């Protein structure tokens, strides 16, 4: 028996490192294939597996970084459009005649404003006697008053029965009038009164009634304002407001009789600073992209997303306007360096004439309405759109890869579990057979030994 054991041990010592089966049956071939596959998987170093995952994580992280930088670039781009409201300014020749306020929609130009009459407001006042403390005394003991301003009436309900509360209630009523409490007496003998002034210009009736009598006396009757713009209309425009709109986006306040010019001009001061911010954001995105290009590049080397982003940047900066004296960013001081980054020369913008400024604004346009800004915004949307953008789709692809890996591994696990079961069954059957053969061998040897003690063949079999 020791001979048998040695034989088996030697055989195993030879076979163990090779893990190949003997025999030529189909079963043996299938088993060998399965085991080879299993060994192939098992031989994968964990470090390699982690490297795979690190690559996916690294790509995702870098995509996230690039996505953030492109979002910043888009925000900077939209900042240029946001500065539109401050690209025009108004200058007044004589600010004692009018003052001006301008918004982004005003068109550059010179407007001549002739104030024929600045207009005035109406006023009225109470004439009560004996009110020495406006915090405790009032014009009437009534708790409710009716205020008349022009042809409209308002119900006034003071919170307390005092002159101060009455004035506050009038001011909170929404009526186009302003109420104040004034002292018409001396410091030693005060006499507090309620004074009311209309908000609108012109003759506006003002009265306050406590249910039994009128409490106010008219002081002044206002007059309407009147003005012309560029001499039109010859008879003037009558207004009940001291602030009038003389052109879209251009309001002036009538201060005194006289004629003066209001000049609206464009300026690119804010555009200049926004372009500078845009160039900074562009360079940040470009520099990060460059990290993923070339043989020593980062995790996204060879990834189509990098190519798409590079293309987007190039297309954006290469935009050419269709008309006017300004048709490229270079004319606004935005130029390429040899490294592919951008520089911004603010003197280029500062040196533009008024016509060039207007053309520059046309060239820039609006993110939703033409020009460079719309083109650039649409181009960047192709990168940053949270659903269809390059960053989103590429990130989804990486997610899918990870999912596929997990699915594949789950399938492999199932197959290996089945293989394990089969091998364990095979070992159990082999075990049973070994025992059975041993028993049968013993049985036969006993049988043969019983009757062939002199048979040399039988003896050698033991």
């Amino acid at each position, binding site marked *: 028996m020791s001979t048998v054991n040695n034989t088996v041990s030697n055989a195993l010592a030879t076979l*163990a490192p090779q893990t190949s089966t003997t025999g030529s049956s189909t079963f043996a071939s299938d088993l060998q294939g399965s085991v080879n596959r299993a060994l192939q998987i*098992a031989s994968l170093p964990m470090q390699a597996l982690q490297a795979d995952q690190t690559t996916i994580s690294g790509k995702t992280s870098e995509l996230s970084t690039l996505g953030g930088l492109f979002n910043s670039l888009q925000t900077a781009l939209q900042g240029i459009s946001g500065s539109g409201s401050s690209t025009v300014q108004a200058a007044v020749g004589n600010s004692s005649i009018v003052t001006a306020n301008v918004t982004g929609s005003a068109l550059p130009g010179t407007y001549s404003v002739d104030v024929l009459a600045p207009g005035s407001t109406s006023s009225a006042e109470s004439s009560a006697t004996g009110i020495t403390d406006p915090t405790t005394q009032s014009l009437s003991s009534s708790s409710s008053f009716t205020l008349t301003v022009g042809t409209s009436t308002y119900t006034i309900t003071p919170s307390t029965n005092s002159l101060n509360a009455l004035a506050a209630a009038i001011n909170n009523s929404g009526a186009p009038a302003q109420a104040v409490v004034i002292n018409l007496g001396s410091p030693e003998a005060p006499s507090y009164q309620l004074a009311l002034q209309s908000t609108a210009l012109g003759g506006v009736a003002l009265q306050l009634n406590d249910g039994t009598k009128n409490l106010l006396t008219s002081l002044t009757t206002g007059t309407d304002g009147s003005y012309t713009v560029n001499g039109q209309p010859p008879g003037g425009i009558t207004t009940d407001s001291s602030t009038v709109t003389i052109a879209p986006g251009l309001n002036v306040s009538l201060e005194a009789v006289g004629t003066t010019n209001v000049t609206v001009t464009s300026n690119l001061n804010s555009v200049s600073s926004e372009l500078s911010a845009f160039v900074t954001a562009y360079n940040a995105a470009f520099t990060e992209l460059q990290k993923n290009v070339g043989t020593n590049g980062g995790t996204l080397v060879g990834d189509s997303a990098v190519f798409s982003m590079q293309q987007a940047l190039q297309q954006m900066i290469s935009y050419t306007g269709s008309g006017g004296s300004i048709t490229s960013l270079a004319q606004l001081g935005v130029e390429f360096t040899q490294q592919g980054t951008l520089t911004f020369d603010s003197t280029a913008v500062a040196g533009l004439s008024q016509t060039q400024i207007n053309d520059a604004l046309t060239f820039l346009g609006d993110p939703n309405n033409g020009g460079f800004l719309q083109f650039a915004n649409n181009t960047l949307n192709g990168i940053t759109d949270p659903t269809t953008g390059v960053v989103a789709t590429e990130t989804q692809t990486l997610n899918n890869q990870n999912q596929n890996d997990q699915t594949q591994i789950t399938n492999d696990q199932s197959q*290996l579990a089945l293989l394990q079961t089969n091998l364990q069954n095979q070992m159990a059957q082999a075990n049973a057979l070994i025992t*059975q053969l041993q028993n049968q061998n013993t049985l036969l*040897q006993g049988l043969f030994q019983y009757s062939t003690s002199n048979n040399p063949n039988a003896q050698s079999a*033991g």
Partner: protein
Amino acid sequence: MLKAQADLARELRAAVLGNDHAKAGHLAEQYTAALSEQWASMSEPERATSGIPKQAVELLTWAREMTIMQHAIVGQHLAAVQKAHRYLTARANYLRTAAI
């Protein structure tokens, strides 16, 4: 040895070589039974000169040794598969925790 026993012996060897241990077990039983029956029918002089004992014991010993080797080989395979399974489990856990 009769042809039937010889056929059984050949089939038993084939089954063992084919790793079909269940079939080998059945064939070994049939072989042993047939051999015992044949042995019982033989006279003493025939038994004294018969080569059956030697052939039978050699066959069963060969089958047992071969099965032991196969058992060891399958054990090696099983160990490899179990190792692979452990790697896969670790990988699955890693992927789950590193999920994006």
